[in-house]
């Protein structure tokens, strides 16, 4: 028998039945009935943020560090529009979220009512799917569908817009097991014949490489284990995108580091020169491929992805396998075992020798200084001092993000939360709030830039309220460093509006938020200051004053090929001038 309850009660019941323990939100007129129902139950805990964008990023951090669906609750109009950046971020990075938005009552929809906006219209292109629920009897089904759509296939954000009269109306409740989606059936099992062909191609390769992405992490812990198993069975080199860091341990001999625009020399050169490329859960994004017509010209490409629209979108591949990474990897291992292919020891030895030659360039080297903290050093010391802890890293967007990816070494998945696809400044602090909520005893650090962190700084107040001891480690160069670097390389060093003339005193700001501020100004201060930060049981704003004009290398300039990288140690003025073509300049 279906039970009868109000729309608002249905929302709470559906959330509880979907296993939601935490929901990030902000109240307003159009969601008051849901807030009232929230008040009268204890299954779901609500975290009050300070801005709806923060709620969505917090839910993203929560989702990425747990593998669960993140939940958000916001009001109509400005509540919904404030959530749009976060929703777009989650769509670009394939993060499963359900965002409930309040809406004006159905009879007022379309009348420009107070705090009305066309939420489903606005969020249609920035969600995986969205719903406007006009009948309370559809509400339970739609909510369960929303969770199903958010987490299956290629994950993504789903919005459920609920008019206020529907929240008050009485209707019947159905549980999650009674809901089957009419049309949405993602394909998870890869084609067997294609899997056999893939094994043949990998077995015959002389210069193979694995190129993996966020899809492996999204697939879950089994995919990570299977990836490690398969890559070790083959003995082949592996690199990953920004989104995929942690799926393969950074300490492993087979690991080449991250690839792409600020990836390592060895990873990019190996991608360029390989003869068989095995892409698992990555999407040939433009940060990865560089100039498309010069992207890995001599290789046969295998592409494993759960989303058929990722296949042949940017790069035409030779063997697509559509399916879930874990399933396909398991089958690859099974077929590989049955086949036990003879390794071409000579060819693989020569390939590794070539790779070791590239490694010897030490592409991440930088000139150490003892008068000022180099940002790379700050991340290195942070890594060395925290690596034994139960640590989760989030970031903002800019140079510091790339230095974090280069110098913080990840051994496990779900430990690294960064805005990859959208590149959203202001992501890291609220994401850290979400991560800490899910892992109360862990060390959660946002490696931040001083410009980015000001975009969502108000969430420090959330961290204080919920006693979340997040650590905001700001690489403070007073510049929008990444913008300054591009202006130096592409715009004749005219630093148009990339310097922040009036920054707050972050230590005093921390005190104003009633948390702890720490400052480090000289390389000699660094270790003690980091240790102090780790020992504080409160949220910390760490103002790490770094070299103002350091650049992030290596770098593949926009529009260039993988084998045309700028290296940090020896870039001359002429090389810089020559490095970026006119066509490259129009690219971002």
């Amino acid at each position, binding site marked *: 028998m279906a039970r009868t309850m109000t729309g608002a009660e249905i929302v709470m019941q559906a959330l509880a039945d979907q296993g939601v323990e935490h929901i990030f939100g902000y109240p307003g007129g159009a969601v008051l009935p849901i807030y009232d129902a929230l008040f009268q139950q204890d299954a779901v805990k609500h975290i009050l943020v300070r801005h709806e964008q923060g709620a969505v990023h917090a839910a993203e951090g929560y989702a990425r560090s747990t593998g669960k669906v993140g939940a958000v609750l916001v009001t109509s109009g400005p509540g919904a529009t404030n959530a749009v950046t976060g929703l777009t971020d989650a769509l670009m990075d394939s993060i499963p979220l359900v965002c409930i938005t309040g809406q004006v009552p159905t009879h007022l929809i379309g009348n420009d009512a107070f705090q009305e906006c066309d939420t489903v219209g606005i969020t*249609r292109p920035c969600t995986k799917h969205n719903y*406007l629920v006009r009948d309370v009897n559809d509400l339970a089904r739609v909510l369960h569908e929303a969770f199903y*759509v958010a987490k299956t296939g290629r994950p993504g954000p789903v919005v459920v817009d609920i008019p206020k009269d529907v929240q008050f109306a009485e209707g019947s409740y159905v549980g999650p097991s009674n809901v089957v989606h009419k049309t949405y059936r993602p394909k998870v099992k890869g084609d067997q014949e294609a899997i056999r062909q893939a094994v043949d191609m990998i077995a015959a390769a002389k210069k193979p490489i694995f190129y993996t992405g966020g899809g492996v992490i999204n697939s879950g812990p089994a995919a990570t284990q299977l990836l490690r198993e398969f890559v070790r069975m083959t003995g082949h080199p592996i690199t990953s995108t920004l989104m995929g860091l942690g799926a393969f341990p950074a300490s492993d001999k087979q690991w080449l580091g991250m690839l792409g625009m600020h990836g390592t020399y060895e990873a990019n050169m190996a991608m360029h020169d390989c003869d068989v490329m095995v892409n698992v859960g990555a999407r040939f994004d433009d940060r990865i491929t560089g100039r498309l017509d010069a992207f890995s010209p001599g290789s046969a490409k295998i592409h494993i992805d759960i*989303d058929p629209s990722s296949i042949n979108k940017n790069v035409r591949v030779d063997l697509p396998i559509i399916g879930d990474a874990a399933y396909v990897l398991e089958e690859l291992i099974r077929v590989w075992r049955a086949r036990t292919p003879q390794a071409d020891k000579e060819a693989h030895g020569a390939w590794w020798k070539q790779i070791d030659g590239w490694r010897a360039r030490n592409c991440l080297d930088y000139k150490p200084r003892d008068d000022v903290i180099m940002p790379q050093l700050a991340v290195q010391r942070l890594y060395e001092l925290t690596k034994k802890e139960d640590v989760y890293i989030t970031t903002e967007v800019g140079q510091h993000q790339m230095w974090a990816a280069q110098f913080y070494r990840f051994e496990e998945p779900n430990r690294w939360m960064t805005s990859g696809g959208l590149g959203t400044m202001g992501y890291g602090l609220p994401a850290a709030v979400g991560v800490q909520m899910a892992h109360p005893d862990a060390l959660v650090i946002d490696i931040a830039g001083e410009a980015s962190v000001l975009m969502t700084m108000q969430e420090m107040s959330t961290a204080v309220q919920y006693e979340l001891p997040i650590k905001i480690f700001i690489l403070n160069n007073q510049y929008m460093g990444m913008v300054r670097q591009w202006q130096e390389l592409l715009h004749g060093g005219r630093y148009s509006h990339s310097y922040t003339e009036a920054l707050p005193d972050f230590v005093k700001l921390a005190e104003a938020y009633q948390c702890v501020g720490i400052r480090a100004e000289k390389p000699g201060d660094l270790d003690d200051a980091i240790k102090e930060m780790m020992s504080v049981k409160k949220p910390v704003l760490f103002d790490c004053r770094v070299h103002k004009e350091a650049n992030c290398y290596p770098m593949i300039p926009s529009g260039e090929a993988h084998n045309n990288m700028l290296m940090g140690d020896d870039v001359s003025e002429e090389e810089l001038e020559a490095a970026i073509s006119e066509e490259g300049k129009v690219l971002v």
Partner: protein
Amino acid sequence: MDSRPISNEQHTMSVLVDNEPGVLARVIGLFSGRGYNIDSLTVSETEHEAHLSRITIVTTGTPMVIEQIKSQLERLVPIHSVNDLTVSGQPMERELALIKVAGKGEKRVEALRLAEAFRAQVIDASTEHFVFEMTGKLNKIEQFVLLMKPLGLVEVARTGIAAIGRGPTRM
């Protein structure tokens, strides 16, 4: 690497969707957001009980883009199936047009004579005008409209293409 020549092709796709609010907006938003061409688009409910509508889209692009369009459409949640009719074989394609022509004397006689030759029906007339109704393939309609121009063409309304695959089976 792609060795195929990068030339544009025109394809007709038939998209079976759940007839729910917003589904057409999703399809159109996909095309405008990703910069795909729409040469023709028609939509109507086709199976009332099953809540199904059929959208017929004619689009132009490189083979890689056409392939993308199909998989992007398939990714939309309320979509049942996407069929590239051009790939499955020469589809039957028809369009309906209403053509208003005004004039007197020789021109008027000539317009009526041509309409008969093209099997267009007269659905409204006065001593000064005709409205012709005509169904057929795209180029037949275009040719007729072209011929009407010097004979006093006033305006044209067209439905866009409805298309269906050949043979006894459904898509």
